[in-house]
């Protein structure tokens, strides 16, 4: 705990001291202190994971009175994720911000420090007021970070949208807390368990609370802000928001599940259903995108869905007393929290490097970058394989644990619950293969083939700090993928803090052994690959080597970059099936006459939640407020009348009181 507090203070110092440092050294000063602070905080969390929970109590005058910061297994795990993501983000950001030498960045760096700091506080706070304070600090500081490119209209819209969404979330969470407090009579989270005596009441309160957290996490249909805010933010911020910040929503859901104990069946099924919806629809929306960062943002929705599947299964398991579902579902979800932080950070940073080099996020204008920016391309492909859940990388490990949960848990679940679990397995498989489709598109169109624009042709790899930030994440991805056993053992200890029937450690042990076998098979696969590649190169050398020529074009040898397949055409077979469900607008100008001069095809993905939920909702609110517009007439006499009326009413109230 001391280490953790020292880390928080160092982080705060990083935010303050950089402002006093002259501009040339400002970023470096900030990055050094921030990384040091995060290392300290991470070390603190690590010792907690090994030694057990610790807490520290501060006494304050009214209204905070006491503030308790506690590191238990769950908090420590999230602190580790935040610290590691924060370190990579800070290093990458130091390089990324180097591209803005004419901006002072004082405010930006200060907000960046506050942002990471507030996330650390959110996952360690144990009372309502400090939690809400940290939560709001997190929203506001990230708002400042999103609003970096303030001259851009799109960024301004996204910022406003984000601002509103975060405060709707805040209102919901506040309502949930207040409901709990009416029963518990205290702002301490641990006292909330008292409300469970009244089942339906606790369920309603939890639902409201979870809705608030779901907005932050980005579950469909609460995701509207996410695909707007993430592309608008500068890439070092997008990576942190997507990889780390939205996980605080997941943390909230887990924390209150842990406190309240066994959830109702309905609640578990609602969480599971929303998770499945988010996973499948999130990736379908991602497939339709042309904007690289927006595509990645929709994948965050998908991955939050996968995490939610684990949580939903675990909640169902808690309800029906199903050991594998609780332990493996929760462990899979937590592992995916970590994994998503790693690969989504890497992918956003890669997209940032591409944007930096080619000045566009439009996939259709990129291409052939693998020759121009080989390091970024290799890292992005690695991240893509990981996010598609494919071996031998980390995404596979968490999905593997989730499948194990379902395969081992289904036979123990009675009646229809077994079928629910199997259907969930099918949906997870669908999500996985759709992610594969989407990321072959992203890698293939952005990095492979030939450049589709001059800007893409002139692209080059970013500098050392940006690559270092990405490489750090790539190493972690490989570590979790190839040596999964210790990582699983760690999340299993966190999962075991949930009310588990039987001995959790005894149930986790065979899975640790299984993961050991998995990593041996993966090593076998890699050796086989190395052997085959060696054989192939030897054979080719012996058979007369490799001749270079043009790509086969039915005998046509002058193919241009514009003749390549595009991202839209690559996904068009799928869009023909699902486009209408997704609100995909297409526009086709057919070729006319014998010598057609022009033809055109355009497609615009529209988010149905935006079109049918958010837009009408906003219209309704605007209409309702327009009914009150007469209050603000601008007429001075009217305002004086308000004053007089108020005074009269106050007078009447006081006199009535006495």
């Amino acid at each position, binding site marked *: 705990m001391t280490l953790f507090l020292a880390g928080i203070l160092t982080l705060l110092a990083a935010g303050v001291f950089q402002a006093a440092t002259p501009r040339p050294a400002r970023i470096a000063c900030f990055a050094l202190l921030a990384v040091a602070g995060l290392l300290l905080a991470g070390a603190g969390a690590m010792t907690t994971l090994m030694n057990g929970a610790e807490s520290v109590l501060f006494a304050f005058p009214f209204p905070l009175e006491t503030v308790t910061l506690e590191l238990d297994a769950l908090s420590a795990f999230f602190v580790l994720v935040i610290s590691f993501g924060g370190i990579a983000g800070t290093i990458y950001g130091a390089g990324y911000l180097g591209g803005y030498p004419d901006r002072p960045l004082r405010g930006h760096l200060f907000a960046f420090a506050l942002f990471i700091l507030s996330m650390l506080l959110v996952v360690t706070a144990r009372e309502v007021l400090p939690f809400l304070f940290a939560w709001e600090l997190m929203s506001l500081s990230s708002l400042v970070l999103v609003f970096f490119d303030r001259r851009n209209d799109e960024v301004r819209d996204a910022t406003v949208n984000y601002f509103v969404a975060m405060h709707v979330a805040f209102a919901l969470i506040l309502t949930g807390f207040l409901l709990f407090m009416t029963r518990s009579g205290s702002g301490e989270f641990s006292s909330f368990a008292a409300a469970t005596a009244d089942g339906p009441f606790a369920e309603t309160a939890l639902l409201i609370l979870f809705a608030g957290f779901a907005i932050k996490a980005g579950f469909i249909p609460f995701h509207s802000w996410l695909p707007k805010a993430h592309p608008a933010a500068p890439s070092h911020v997008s990576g942190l928001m997507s990889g780390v910040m939205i996980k605080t929503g997941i943390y909230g859901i887990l924390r209150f599940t842990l406190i309240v104990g066994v959830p109702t069946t309905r609640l578990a099924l609602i969480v599971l259903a929303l998770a499945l919806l988010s996973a499948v629809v999130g990736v379908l929306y991602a497939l339709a995108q042309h904007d690289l960062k927006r595509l990645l943002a929709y994948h965050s929705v998908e991955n939050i869905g996968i995490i939610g599947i684990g949580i939903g299964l675990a909640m169902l398991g808690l309800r029906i007393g199903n050991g594998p579902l609780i332990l493996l579902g929760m462990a899979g979800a937590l592992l995916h929290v970590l994994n998503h932080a790693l690969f989504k950070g890497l992918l956003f940073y890669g997209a940032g490097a591409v944007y930096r080099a080619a000045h566009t996020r439009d996939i259709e204008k990129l291409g052939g970058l693998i020759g121009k920016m080989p390091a970024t391309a290799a890292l992005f492909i690695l991240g893509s394989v990981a996010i598609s*859940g494919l071996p031998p990388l980390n995404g596979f490990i968490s999905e593997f644990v989730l499948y194990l949960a379902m395969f081992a848990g289904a036979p123990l679940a009675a009646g229809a619950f077994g079928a629910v679990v199997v259907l969930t397995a099918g949906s997870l498989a669908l999500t996985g293969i759709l992610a594969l489709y989407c990321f072959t598109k992203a890698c293939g169109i952005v990095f492979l083939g030939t450049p589709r624009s001059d800007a893409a042709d002139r692209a080059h790899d970013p500098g050392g700090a940006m690559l270092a930030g990405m490489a750090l994440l790539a190493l972690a991805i490989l570590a979790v993928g190839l040596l999964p056993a210790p990582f699983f053992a760690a999340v299993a200890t966190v999962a075991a803090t949930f009310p588990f029937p039987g001995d959790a450690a005894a149930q986790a042990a065979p899975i640790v052994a299984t993961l050991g076998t998995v990593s041996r098979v993966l090593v076998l696969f890699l050796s086989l690959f190395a052997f085959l590649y060696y054989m192939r190169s030897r054979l080719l050398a012996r058979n007369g080597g490799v001749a270079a020529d043009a790509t086969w074009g039915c005998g046509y040898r002058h193919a241009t970059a514009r003749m390549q397949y595009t991202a839209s055409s690559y996904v068009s077979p799928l869009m023909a099936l699902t486009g209408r469900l997704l609100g995909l607008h297409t526009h086709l100008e057919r070729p006319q006459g014998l010598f057609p001069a022009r033809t055109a095809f355009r497609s615009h993905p529209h988010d149905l939640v935006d079109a049918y939920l958010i837009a009408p909702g906003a219209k309704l609110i605007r209409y309702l407020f327009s009914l009150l517009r007469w209050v603000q007439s601008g007429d001075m006499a009217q305002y004086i009348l308000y004053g007089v009326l108020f005074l009269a009413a106050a007078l009447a109230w006081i006199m009535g009181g006495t």
Partner: protein
Amino acid sequence: MVAHMLNILFLLFLPFLMLGVMSRIKALAGGRKGPPLLQPFFDMLKLLRKGAVVSRVTSWVFTVAPSLALAATLTALLLAPGVGRAQVISFDGDIVLCLYLLGLAKFFQLISALDTGSAFEGMGAGREALFSVIVEPSLFLFAGTLALVSGATSFGALFTLAQSGAWPAVAATTGTLLFFLLMLTEGCRIPVDDPNTHLELTMIHEVMILDNAGPDLAFLQYAAALKMYLFALLTAALVLPVDLSPLPAAFALPAVALLCAALAGIVESLVARFRISHVPQFLFLTVALALIALAASVYFRGGVA
């Protein structure tokens, strides 16, 4: 041990023999004599002795993809149930690793096709990806259903059905049909794809490997044949009796595989290829079959709670 060695031996020959049987049956149905049964194997040996012409557009992705795809497919096949349902490697959840390794192979084959910058290859890749999107969930649904009933989590045990009863009959029927459809789809056979077409625009799998040559092409074709063989293995694991003694089991497995190939050959001789826009409708059959199996399993487990 003997079973493992047989499994590995079968991996080397049976996939080619299946291809040979298919083309022999098609030849016979067309009134021709047809090439030797092991012709696909000789073709591969010939390809291994050839050089390659590689597009200037391609990168390292194109270079590593064939070896990576073959390595992933071979490793996946080591996890599959073979003679007497014995797996060379087995552990809890091995089926997930097996199918996801095939996914890895697919990932690299798709981006290797896009690496050439050819519109033909992009087209083939897009179609292949869509077909996988439809068939992949059906496999997991079916495997999940088997797990739901058997309580097993390992490949071989998962496919060990009870000797008699209504549920094993339903599972064997739906499963055999499902795997046969998957074999045709993943093996790129008629009515989904036509391995013998000569027009780039109508190819799917073939067009993705247009620019591959020499050993790389050999690797990709072997990987494709292995994938087809995997579905024959799954069919065998589902339908062969549990209490088969080792010797008949060693003969039963190739028999089932060649029977599957013969059936595919008969289908190819009788059926025309579907219009590409109709293939997804056909593939939804696999999802339907898996859902039927799931519904049946819930019914036979004692109804809906």
